[in-house]
């Protein structure tokens, strides 16, 4: 498998040879940030296009068709429009927080995004408590949403924000438990090592029943984290018009819109990293020729393929299921998912201790 770290090390050495080390670091930071943001935006555009086409397919429609071939340029048109749309400032709103909120949401998702291992060595942040960092970074997105709701001076936004606070903080717990059970299985918290450990078999196969249960709970909780149906209460269209971002227009709304899609990507990306082997190819022990062929497919393709498969699953759910009520959302988490998650963690630990894993 090709290791991208050879390229990055080469660039690093080149910069250090021509620049003083501080300046080299600065240039590297800027380069990395540029690449990350560019990838972030491109993926967001792909995701939005995919969502439209997938939902159209479920709904016996065609989706965007006229802007570019098969509507491929539709999202670019939307972005152009959004960029030059007026940003309204609201009377009696808390100006600072109101303007800060969308950036907080995007920041949180960019930070989390940079932890995703796209291929071997192709990862911005990788250190020994990477999993822990992902959870920390992703959980401050809720702050942005709460602030957005609070500062807009709008009652719908307020209800949406409070709902989202209750929901996202609750479901953080389930995500934590699921990730913990994988950490128990692998024995590491470093993301690159987590992926490397799955070279011979993905965790969802190696951890069999407890890993599968954790995967399902993770998908449910992850869906709730991203505020998508059936957990889209914070922005419940038919109840709260647009929920916490009711008062946002132009690119500020665009940030929320993009962050929602990218959070979906991140949730799916983490799911594929932790459960489906990240960029490691599918290996079946015993079929050596099959394994060799699989190795020829680059890691990026494996990672994106798995991630988009999970995204597709979540979109399927999103366009099929009705919305839950707030008390049902909370009771689903605290009465079902958390106890099952805890029990599952116990079983996983037992399996690891007794060596009942593959």
């Amino acid at each position, binding site marked *: 498998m090709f290791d991208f770290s050879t390229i990055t090390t080469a660039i690093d050495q080149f910069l250090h040879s021509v620049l003083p080390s501080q300046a080299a670091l600065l240039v590297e930071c800027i380069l990395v940030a540029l690449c990350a943001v560019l990838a972030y935006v491109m993926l967001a555009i792909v995701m939005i296009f995919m969502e439209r086409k997938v*939902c159209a397919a*479920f*709904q*016996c*429609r065609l989706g965007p068709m006229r802007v570019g071939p098969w509507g491929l340029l539709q999202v670019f048109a939307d972005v152009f429009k959004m960029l030059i749309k007026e940003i309204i400032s609201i009377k009696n709103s808390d100006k600072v927080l109101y303007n800060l909120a969308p950036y907080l949401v995007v920041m949180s998702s960019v930070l989390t995004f940079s932890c995703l291992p796209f291929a071997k060595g192709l990862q911005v942040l990788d250190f020994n408590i990477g999993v822990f960092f992902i959870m920390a970074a992703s959980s401050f997105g809720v702050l942005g949403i709460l602030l957005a709701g609070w500062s807009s001076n709008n*009652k*719908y936004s307020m*209800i949406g924000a409070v*709902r989202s606070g209750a929901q996202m903080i609750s479901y953080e717990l389930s995500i934590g438990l699921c990730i913990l059970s994988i950490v128990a299985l692998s024995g590491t918290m470093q993301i690159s090592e987590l992926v490397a450990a799955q070279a011979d078999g993905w965790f969802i196969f190696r951890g069999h029943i407890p890993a599968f249960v954790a995967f399902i709970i993770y998908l449910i909780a992850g869906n709730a984290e991203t505020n998508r*149906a*059936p957990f*889209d*209460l914070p922005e*419940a*269209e*038919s*109840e*709260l*018009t647009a929920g916490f971002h009711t008062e946002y227009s132009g690119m500020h709304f665009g940030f929320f819109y993009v962050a929602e899609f990218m959070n979906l990507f991140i949730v799916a990306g983490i799911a594929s990293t932790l459960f489906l082997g990240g960029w490691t190819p599918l290996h079946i022990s015993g079929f050596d020729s099959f394994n060799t062929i699989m190795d020829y497919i680059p890691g990026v393709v494996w990672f994106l393929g798995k991630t988009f498969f999970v995204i597709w699953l979540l979109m399927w759910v999103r*366009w*099929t*299921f*009705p*919305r*839950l*009520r*707030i*008390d*049902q959302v909370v009771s689903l988490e605290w009465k079902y998912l958390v106890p099952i998650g805890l029990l599952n963690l116990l079983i996983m630990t037992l399996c690891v201790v007794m060596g009942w894993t593959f």
Partner: protein
Amino acid sequence: MNPEFIDINDFRARMETLRRTGMNFLRDIIGMDWGEEGLGAIYSLENTSTGQVLQTAVRCCDREKPSIPTVCDLWSVAELYEREVYDFFGIHFAGHPDMRRLYLRNDWVGHPLRKDYNEDEAINPIRMENEIPEDVQRPYELAEDAEMEISDKLTNKIHGDQYIINIGPQHPATHGVLRFRLALDGEEIRKIDIHCGYIHRGIEKMSEKMTYPQILALTDRLDYLSAHQNRHALCMCIEKAMGIEITDRTQYIRTIMDELQRIDSHLLFLSCAAMDLGAITTFIYGFRDREKILDIFEEVTGGRLIQNYNTIGGVQYDITPDFAKKVKEFCQYQKGKLQEYNDVFTNNIITRKRMIGVGILSYDDAISYGCTGGTGRASGWACDVRKRHPYALYDKVDFKEIIYKNGDCYDRFLVRLDEIVESIHIIEQLIDNIPEGDYKVKTKPIIRIPEGRYSASVEGSRGEFGVFIESKGDKSPYRIKFRPMGLPLVAAMHKILKGAKIADLIAIGATLDYVIPDIDR
């Protein structure tokens, strides 16, 4: 039918007696302006166990300060009906707890349905400033140098320190321009205040200046999802009054069209209910299948949504040669699709959790609030006009009245789905037997209804739709009144909403299935 006139002093006692003797369904209160004889109201009552129908009337000679004793403690629905009469005629109902205008703005001058109403634009121009809610005190200034202070002093309708939120008039879940003011405690709804009139077009007043064929055009725009049935009711009423016998062929066509319209409306109900609960795919499925009916409508009548098809003495055009074939194809198609709705939406665990046991309307409340149609039948009340007072061909066809017991959102939803099956069943019995003959009988070029009072009602898509005409023998009616199907449903909202959450309000609103232009007229 001529109403029993009661002296205003005995009115209250007589109504109490009637209520005790089992007249438990107040169909409608029709405000009247009899000119010199004074203002008054006609009450249309029904005994739901015996089917006995009765109209009473009361008259108040004082035109300056007319007042009639209230009956809203006897029939709950009277609360909104009386507000409507107050709004249009200025009749004050003594003892009514909340005598406010229902449709028009608070600052509206005059009562439009009175015969002496001044329609001058200068008196009631378009007011672009926002309406000040009646329970909030007007802003007042302290002094020249001090800042202006707005006092949010609230009366007892919605209590002071609760979180008050507006749902509507432009809100995706109110199916139009209804407005609720909610007092919230967290997510729970404490009180609800209903504001109608955002699409009040004054159809009844306009009708008093129009000829009967002209009025027909307006009925389609009342409840556009029972356009056909509305028009059927008015045509029936006029035909009854003039003694026109319509042909069998017309009866067949009208009945089939009514049922197609009912399926159309119920499919839209399914779609909108699904969308309100957040299942957007089901919304599109409903619309996809609804288009098939619209195709049939379009081919026969020329209109998709508003068909303008029934006319006095028959229907506008004859059916097309392959009408029967197309309808049968549709029936086959639709039967298969019902299972799809069940798979994707009805049997979904979240749908069931959201609807079962939510928004219960009891049997007694359903009658007291006069909630006819699917809502009443979900509460166990056999209120189908097609069975109670059969018209057209409904006494000749065999169909089942769908009745559920629980009266919750899920039952209200199922009633409509099952009614689609029954409607298909009715259509299938009729479609092969449409007799030959004229589709329209010749009527006089100018239609005058003999002096008197006439009423007719049909089972619209969402309840009993009634027409009342008082004629003085002219080309246009002296007073025409349409019984709205949706107003009783909206009146029952605050009863149903006891202890509900915001999300339940949406589910309840969706399954009650009201159409705002029908409420507001």
